[in-house]
């Protein structure tokens, strides 16, 4: 006897609203359906109305955990459009913050996986050690999340010797603790019983459904933007790509912990080899017309920004393809023929950043329940008609 159980939009297992409709029979899932758009904020349209510098801060606020990925991907694209290259010291500082953000994001995920599985002690210990990374980031950039260290043409803050010493000390402590968590995660019997064999995604399926990031790396696909398309400093650093071949949630856990162990060696290399020089290059207010695609390896996978400029001081079109959006199709495949008890873990294993991947696809009439699929051209037309192409009304739209 099949019946439908809704997970979300409000559910303790989800950090952000998302509609999952499962068709279950007993305790086994037969089918799943995902609904997006509960948190749609219209960021791509707002980006067309702010100038190039203001957009850095807007891009940061797409997500809290991977804020630096979006800002850096955007700045990479904008710098290519303007034809400028930041100095080497700026690149080292920028990508050191990237690797620190990868560490913080994976430690966050590890704690959340422990909490979803019911292993609260693990969750508390991992988040206690994540405070070390947050304090380091606050030291470098002035804030624990939304680091705002990028500007077009370089970075905004410099590193001095005391900060470098503190970074190296913090990384050494974290390395020992991370190896301990790898040992616990793989050896605690009740935890492994929850993770092993759950959410199976074979290598062919992962390639067919375009999975990316640790979700694909746990199925044996060793693709990483940092190795294939090395931008900036990644071709000067030595590191490996972490892969596993168990194709399940335990593999994804192991891949993420190995990735942060690699990040520690990368951060150490970057601090020791930090070149001297400027931290920024003067950027023009208006780039030349053109379009660019920027790629970046976010903690969750490959992040793609497409930017089109028409020569003014605002972008003409900015499109964000966050990695979680690519992993949704793989999630549906993983959910089929799993147990109800595994839903939070399977969903959490792709490290969902639902706010990054908001798309408004289906409009539902509140009174009649009728659904209508809306194409992009229609949304654009409705938006333009509503505001009649008007410029920003400064100081008039505010009520206070």
């Amino acid at each position, binding site marked *: 006897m099949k019946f439908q159980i809704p997970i979300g939009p409000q559910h303790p297992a989800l950090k952000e609203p998302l509609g999952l409709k499962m068709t279950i029979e007993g305790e086994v899932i037969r089918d799943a359906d995902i609904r997006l758009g509960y948190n749609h904020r219209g960021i791509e349209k707002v980006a067309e109305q702010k*100038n190039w510098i203001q*957009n850095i801060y807007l891009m940061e606020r797409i997500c809290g955990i991977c804020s630096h990925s979006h800002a850096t991907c955007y700045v990479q694209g904008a710098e290519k459009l303007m034809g400028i290259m930041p100095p080497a*010291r700026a690149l080292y500082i920028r990508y050191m913050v990237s690797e620190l953000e990868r560490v913080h994001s994976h430690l966050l995920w590890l704690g959340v996986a422990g909490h979803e599985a019911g292993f609260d002690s693990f969750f508390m210990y991992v988040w206690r050690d994540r405070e070390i990374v947050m304090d380091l980031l606050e030291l470098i950039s*002035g804030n624990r999340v939304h680091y705002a260290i990028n*500007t077009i043409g370089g970075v905004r803050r410099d590193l001095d010797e005391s900060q470098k010493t503190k970074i190296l000390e913090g990384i050494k402590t974290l390395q020992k603790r991370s190896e301990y968590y790898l040992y616990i995660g793989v050896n*605690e019997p009740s935890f492994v019983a929850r993770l092993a064999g759950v959410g199976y995604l074979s290598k062919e399926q992962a390639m067919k459904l375009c999975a990316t990031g640790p979700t694909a790396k746990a199925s044996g696909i060793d693709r990483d933007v940092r190795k294939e398309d090395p931008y900036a400093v990644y071709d000067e650093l030595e590191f490996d790509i972490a892969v596993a071949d168990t194709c399940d949630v335990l593999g994804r856990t192991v891949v993420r912990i190995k990735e942060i162990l690699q990040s520690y060696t990368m951060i150490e290399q970057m601090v020791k080899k930090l070149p001297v020089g400027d931290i920024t290059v003067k950027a023009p207010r208006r780039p030349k017309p053109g379009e660019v695609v920027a790629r970046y390896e976010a903690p969750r996978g490959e992040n793609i920004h497409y930017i089109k400029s028409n020569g003014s001081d605002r972008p003409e079109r900015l499109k964000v393809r966050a990695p979680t959006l690519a992993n949704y199709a793989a999630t549906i495949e993983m959910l089929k023929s799993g147990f109800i008890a595994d839903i939070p873990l399977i969903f959490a294993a792709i490290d969902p950043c639902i706010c990054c991947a908001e798309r408004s696809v289906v409009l539902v009439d509140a009174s009649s329940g009728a659904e209508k699929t809306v194409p992009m051209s229609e949304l654009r037309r409705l938006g333009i008609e509503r505001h009649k192409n008007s410029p920003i009304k400064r*100081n008039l739209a505010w009520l*206070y």
Partner: protein
Amino acid sequence: MKIGVMMPELLRALFKKPATVDYPFVRLAPPPDFRGSPFLKPELCIACLACERDCPAEAIEILSTNEAEKRFMMTIHIDRCIHCAQCVDSCPTDAMAMDMIFEIADVTRLRMKKQWEYVRATVKIKPPPAKPPASPAPA
């Protein structure tokens, strides 16, 4: 099959001091470069409007109150501010700076505005000091 892998760590933790900071009775100090809220040093402001133009949140308003005497009034809306410090970077004369206060929560937005009334300064914008040549950027 190992049983109780985490037990030694848990038992050791019984005798260690807890890692929790007992806020609000104990407060940790923010680091030196912390980005709090912006404030103006009126004697340095030349009213170029660069901060107003570059603020992502439209939190800075500069109005001219008296054209002849070159009087301006700046209002910073702390409730709209996103604490990004772009105003500090855009300002050519060091007139904007960030403070270190982070406990700025209030019950109403109307109390979170700061205002300065001043006469435009005639500070000369210093050229940036000569820096050592930068190492060549990768191709």
